[in-house]
């Protein structure tokens, strides 16, 4: 069975759902993400659903479950890019996805995770400006971390 790719960027995991999800694929993503959170010690999960034309109760439940699971594993989940028509439909469906944080864009989602990260950082010099424009945000994984680790270093988390 196909899997949805999970990218690691620093201590974030990034998922972009680009296909019309079959239920089994959604369940597999749930399992894969929890494994990857544990394996990588990720502190944030960002899920891009901008390509999804609909979110029904099954996908909605998957997003809620991922958010709850990641929280138990000490990582925060943000869902980004929900289309307005999808949001309107979800409200009428009665699906409010409790516990799921949302942001309109990838940049806002990163900033949201960054803002939370900030609160936990013990030292000011470890701060990274995630409110930067997208070019700088892209730099986070590659440029700002020559050793392949994010500028949001490990160790900064231990406090």
């Amino acid at each position, binding site marked *: 069975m196909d899997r949805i790719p999970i990218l690691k960027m620093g201590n974030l995991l990034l998922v972009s759902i680009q296909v019309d999800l079959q239920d089994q694929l959604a369940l597999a993503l749930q399992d894969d993400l929890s494994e990857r959170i544990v394996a990588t010690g990720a502190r944030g999960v960002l899920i891009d659903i901008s390509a999804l034309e*609909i979110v029904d*109760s099954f996908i909605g439940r998957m997003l809620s479950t991922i958010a709850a699971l990641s929280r138990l594993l000490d990582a925060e989940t943000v869902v980004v890019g929900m289309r307005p028509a999808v949001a309107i439909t979800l409200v009428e469906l009665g699906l409010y996805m409790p516990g799921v944080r949302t942001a309109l864009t990838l940049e806002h989602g990163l900033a949201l995770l960054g803002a939370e990260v900030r609160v936990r950082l013990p030292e000011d010099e470890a701060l990274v400006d995630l409110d930067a424009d997208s070019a700088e945000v892209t730099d986070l994984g590659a440029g700002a971390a020559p050793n392949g680790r994010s500028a949001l270093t490990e160790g900064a988390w231990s406090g």
Partner: protein
Amino acid sequence: MSAGRWTVAPAGGVEPTVERTERHPIVTEADVVRVRQIVRNLAVTAKMSLVDQTKMVTAASELARNTLVYGGGGSMTVDIVDNGRRRGIRAVFVDSGPGIPDMDLALTDGWTSGSGLGLGLSGSRRLVDDFAIESSPGAGTTVRIVKWSR
């Protein structure tokens, strides 16, 4: 509640003219995805607004999954309908599964006999203009939904 034949019909209205009819099997998860795409394409053809398309496709997705999971498989018949003033999409989901013993309960927000969120029937009812369901224990379930272009 006693077992029996349950029908929840729409408020009323003229039986619309059918422009085209297609019947699609719902026996695998891939069929549920296909149902979404088919309904989307017809909704575009019927010139529905993006929000209405999204509502109709979401309702169809919920009902198709019920047909598969609870009905043990079945089919969807979908038409473009025309009542002389507006066009719309009508989708009818049919299975010959166990049926629904307590319709009031099944239509209650948040009630599920499985592990769902219990929003499929109640939620899709809100998303469409007409919602009719007929079920009797042992004789399967039929759900008909219509959404009109505005």
